[in-house]
């Protein structure tokens, strides 16, 4: 996994609450390979492009000032709905490395950590303030710094956020979670032995073909 330490980049405000993962990447693209060169074009596809494949001028990512944005500043419950990890893959493919919101869909939140994208939760009024700041100065950059856990504007306003220490460590080191867990092999074996004694009924009988 790609490490995340410190990022300064253009931030794009997305004001709608409850942006679901179906909107972030419509279901028909889920069968596509995330290594495809055009993968990034599936991001927000149906609201970003018109039926003839042209960019819709009113969609915020299509505005000149937000080209090359790296940070999403969203509203409540961004990434809710379907568990599709592709919602994070497609954001990352486009170039996003951080999502700032008052709250995030639970599974989306977890999926971010696994793909080197930092989810930042801040109080609703702070996030609304950040969105207002960007609307006032389109193209303004934000800096997200994971070690001190801060989000700051070029003007110097800085907000501290909470992040799970475990996830923080993994992100800073860009560490692979499966590798970490395999280090617990003895514990897993011991657990399985005890589980088999105490809850023997848990293993289902073999299914007949």
């Amino acid at each position, binding site marked *: 996994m790609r490490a995340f330490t410190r990022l300064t980049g253009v931030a794009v405000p997305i004001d709608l609450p*409850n942006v679901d993962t*179906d909107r972030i990447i419509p279901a028909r693209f889920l069968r596509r390979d995330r290594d495809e060169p055009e993968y990034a074009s599936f991001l927000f596809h149906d609201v970003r492009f018109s039926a003839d494949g042209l960019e819709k001028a009113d969609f915020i990512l299509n505005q000149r000032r937000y080209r090359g944005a790296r940070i999403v500043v969203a509203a409540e419950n961004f990434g809710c709905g379907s568990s599709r990890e592709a919602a994070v893959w497609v954001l990352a493919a486009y170039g996003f490395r951080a999502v700032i919101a008052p709250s995030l869909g639970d599974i989306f939140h977890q999926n971010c950590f696994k793909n080197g994208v930092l989810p930042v939760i801040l109080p609703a009024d702070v996030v609304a303030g950040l969105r207002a700041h960007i609307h006032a100065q389109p193209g303004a950059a934000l800096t997200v710094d994971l070690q001190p856990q801060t989000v700051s504007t070029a003007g110097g306003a800085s907000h501290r956020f909470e992040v799970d220490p475990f996830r923080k460590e993994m992100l800073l080191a860009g560490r692979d979670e499966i590798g970490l867990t395999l280090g617990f092999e003895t514990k*897993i074996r011991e*657990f399985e032995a005890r589980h088999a004694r105490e809850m023997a009924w848990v293993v*289902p009988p073999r299914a007949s073909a």
Partner: protein
Amino acid sequence: MFEKIWTRHVVAEGPGGHVLLYVDRHLLHEGATAAFTRLARSGRRVRRPDLSFATADHYVRTAPGSPVPDDEIRIMVEGLGRHTVLQGITYFGVGDPRRGIVHVIGPEQGLTVPGITLVCGDSHTATHGAFGALAFGIGSSEVEHVMVTQTLWQKRPRTMRITVDGRLAPGVDAKDVILAIIAKIGAGGGVGHAIEYAGSGIRAMSMDERMTVCNMSIEGGARAGMIAPDDTTFAYVEGRPLAPRGAAWRQALAFWKTLPSDPGAVFDREVALAAGEIAPTVTWGTSPQDALPITARVPDPADVGETGRRESMVRALAYMGLRPGTPLAEIAVNRVFIGSCTNSRLDDLRAAARVAKGRRAVVPAWVVPGSGLIKRAAEQEGLDQIFLEAGFEWRESGCSMCVGMNGETAREGERVASTSNRNFEGRQGKGARTHLMSPAMAAAAAVTGRLTDVRTLRT
């Protein structure tokens, strides 16, 4: 109850309050193909194939005839079959009558039982919580993690109890209950929580109905939703093909009876609803929280104070093509879909058939059973005949128009009365407009061509 199951499955304590949680059941569908490919590339193997089960539901066609719509999907479905053989995983594949929607066949086969941890790479995994299991949806990276280690790093969620006391009025069912709950707590209301549904209104429900309630926990933001196991649960599980038998059954049952929350159990949040006040409910917008009684009118954004909420309402109404003040019961529909892991079980099909019987569908209406076995059981009861005589289409099992990954989508601008769980923009096809409701209400919409209060159709 949550506590009792959680504690039993902790393998190790990790940093920052995380625990390594053991997984008793891993259910897989076509969406796992990417994880299987990464697994194969890394040369690793599935640790516990005996605890992993796969089926094909999202991409398989439900029209009679060829089960796959195109080569890309054929390759994907065949790939899943190949991976499961290589890894020694039981696979309910194409051609197997046990094939069906993953959240329908888990319980049906007896894989879903109380007291276990169960995960699946799908957000509606909370369905299985209806049995008093801790069940939640995971992402693709987590699927691979479970394949290799049979565990997950998890942080303890907060707990919420939603109590529904009293009796449901005639014409009101489990779907109306969960839609009313989501309207009350909001689409983000359950974020970070495991929900326990309790109260006499829940206790009185069949397993099929309890699954409908737990299924939509994610639409309220919660990853898990559970109901304490009781005699209804045990009677459902006993004798299922993959349920414990003999001595194992007795041992399991003794444990399951200890699971219900103790009388003094404390929850981080409590919510209560009166069952008797819930009416047949439909959604008008593009979030499951946009739900109202069928007797209401399309709400007016001008009445909403908060700017963000007002703007999203304006947008939702524009997408849905609705005008504020229109009575919901006057909205004409183009199509009806009865199916999905929310409402495709035998009880659901019976409820829809009761309304369809002796009437005639005036718009295209699909009935998509949740599994091959449900389809067969429904046919034995003659439900297929009722639907066919009423002009409904009787199809093969699968996810179908719930998500349309198999190409079965509604057309742009079409309005669908649907028993599925998501009314997001584009969920049932680009530009398609979804109204969520119960199977009886969907059948009522099919025979009148508009959203209809099913209570007005009763004779």
